[in-house]
């Protein structure tokens, strides 16, 4: 388990991380979400002792990272997949890690297989790797020492959709076996798919934390995507009931819970072909919670 307590990191007058406290628990994937420059990376760097905190502390499994002997055997870390010597082959990078941790070279082969880097790719130099391949190598490096805690900064960055699905399976499986996973992202969709719990950070401060359901519970306005064989009539019926309806793609976006649309459709014998809660809820929440820290003024948010 990772416990961050009242962590603050200042650079001169700039406060990168401001009184941050949260926990990442065993058996759970915790998503650390925030816009670029929100303080995610700085927090993670403090966790592993690369940056010293101005105040507050982080413990991993009850210890300060610096006090963990041979830490690679307990904590798997991926802070930046590109932060490796560009002239080393993928296999050599893993071999150096394995040798430092005191692991047999067979472990390197296991990890290469786990992240689907084949023999030919493993012999290529890092400068010839795509970002996706670097991420896979970085994840292999983090898992080398069979750690019980994983700290991954933007691990899905550069992965294709299949790669993101693969990583989701890997991390879910890892957490199900009792591992602690903390992963950061600036993309809500990524974290939403993978994480059990979320910690939202903006401007160096925690703005919300909890499970997806807990976070959404706070946002009472619900919207739904609905498609039917007769969208025009469905829209009319729903409008009569006082729900805001707008056309969206093939169907309608309705400001009401899915059950309300289902009920209306049933009463008027309209055949629904698609009905689902719009995922916009969490995204709206994310944007609103971090809006004052966004670099770009969002259309709509400004009006």
């Amino acid at each position, binding site marked *: 388990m990772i416990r961050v307590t009242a962590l603050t990191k200042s650079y001169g007058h700039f406060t990168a991380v401001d009184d941050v406290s949260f926990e990442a628990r065993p058996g759970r994937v915790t998503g650390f979400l925030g816009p670029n420059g929100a303080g995610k990376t700085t927090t993670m760097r403090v966790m592993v002792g690369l940056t010293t905190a101005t105040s507050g502390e982080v413990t991993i499994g009850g210890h300060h990272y610096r006090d963990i002997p041979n830490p690679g055997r307990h904590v798997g870390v991926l802070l930046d997949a590109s932060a490796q010597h560009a002239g080393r082959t993928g296999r050599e990078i893993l071999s150096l890690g394995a040798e430092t*941790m005191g692991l047999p070279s067979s472990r390197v082969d296991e990890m290469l297989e786990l992240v689907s880097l084949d023999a030919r790719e493993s012999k290529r130099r890092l400068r010839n790797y795509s970002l996706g391949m670097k991420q896979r190598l970085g994840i292999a490096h983090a898992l080398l020492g069979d750690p019980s805690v994983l700290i991954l900064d933007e691990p899905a960055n550069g992965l294709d959709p299949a790669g993101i699905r693969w990583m989701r399976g890997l991390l879910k499986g890892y957490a199900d*076996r009792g591992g602690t996973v903390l992963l950061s992202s600036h993309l809500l969709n990524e974290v939403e798919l993978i994480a059990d719990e979320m910690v939202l950070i903006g401007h160096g401060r925690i703005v919300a934390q909890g499970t997806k359901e807990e976070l959404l519970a706070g946002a009472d306005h619900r919207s739904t995507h609905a498609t039917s064989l007769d969208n025009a009539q469905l829209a009319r019926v729903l409008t009569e009931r006082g729900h805001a309806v707008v056309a969206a793609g093939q169907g309608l976006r309705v400001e009401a819970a899915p059950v309300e649309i289902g009920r209306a459709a049933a009463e008027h014998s309209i055949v629904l072909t698609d009905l689902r809660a719009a995922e916009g809820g969490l995204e709206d929440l994310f944007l609103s919670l971090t809006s004052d820290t966004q670099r770009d003024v969002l259309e709509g948010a400004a009006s």
Partner: protein
Amino acid sequence: MSAIPHAAAPHAGTADLGTIDLSSSDAVPMSRLARVELRKALDTRAGRWFTIAILVLVLAVQVIYAFAAPEDALAYGDFLGVAGGVLGYFMPILIIMLVTSEASQRNGLVTFTLEPRRSRVVVAKFLAGFALAIAVMVLAALIAVVGTLIGIATGAEAQWSVDGNLLFNGFVLANVIGVLIGFAIATLLMNTPAAIVGYFVYSLILPIAVGILGSLSSGFADVAPWIEFNTAQTPLFMGDYTPTGEEWAQIATSGLIWLVLPLALGIARLMRIEFK
């Protein structure tokens, strides 16, 4: 995902309380850290070929010397001195690459995550750097044998005895100082190109500048060996390879300025620097 070996089966007992049991964990032994650092010095094209290039250059200079040098200067000791001179110029760069790649190639992020006690990494780098330097010196001494044999083949008299002062002061001590200079510049600048440029400014431009100033002012010429480390080291590889008491004092004072102080500041910086 059956492919997750026992990778993702975290240690039993840690899941319940979330505490990690460290009782059976040992620190990474220093011997292993040093071995990894030595491997890192040679496992890239840059590192491997630079090392090979130094040795090839030593060989080339030996061959040229065997044909070009006067007959009374073709003893093994002469060849060893020449080899030491070539090494002296390039060995510090080998060390600079070993140290600065952590920041310039950014793998320091991983190095200092796998061993967060930075002082241990610094010690490991020193051990690896000296192991590498000793290996290169031994190989250079062997290449000097080849050079001597070529000299004999071209008609020189076989002379294998070596002045102990030459061997220790001119070859070993001068190169050990070079290695330490490499460490000092590397840790101070922590950037490969800047450190290599800095090294050549220190080793080539600085002595020339001091020489020019010395020729303009005899007062400065007297002071120079006390404050300029290259100038002060000259007695190590000249004449009888044996500095006088005053010359040793000059090596000590200028070494304090150009070696001890920068090295102390550089290591202090390495201990605190944020690897990005």
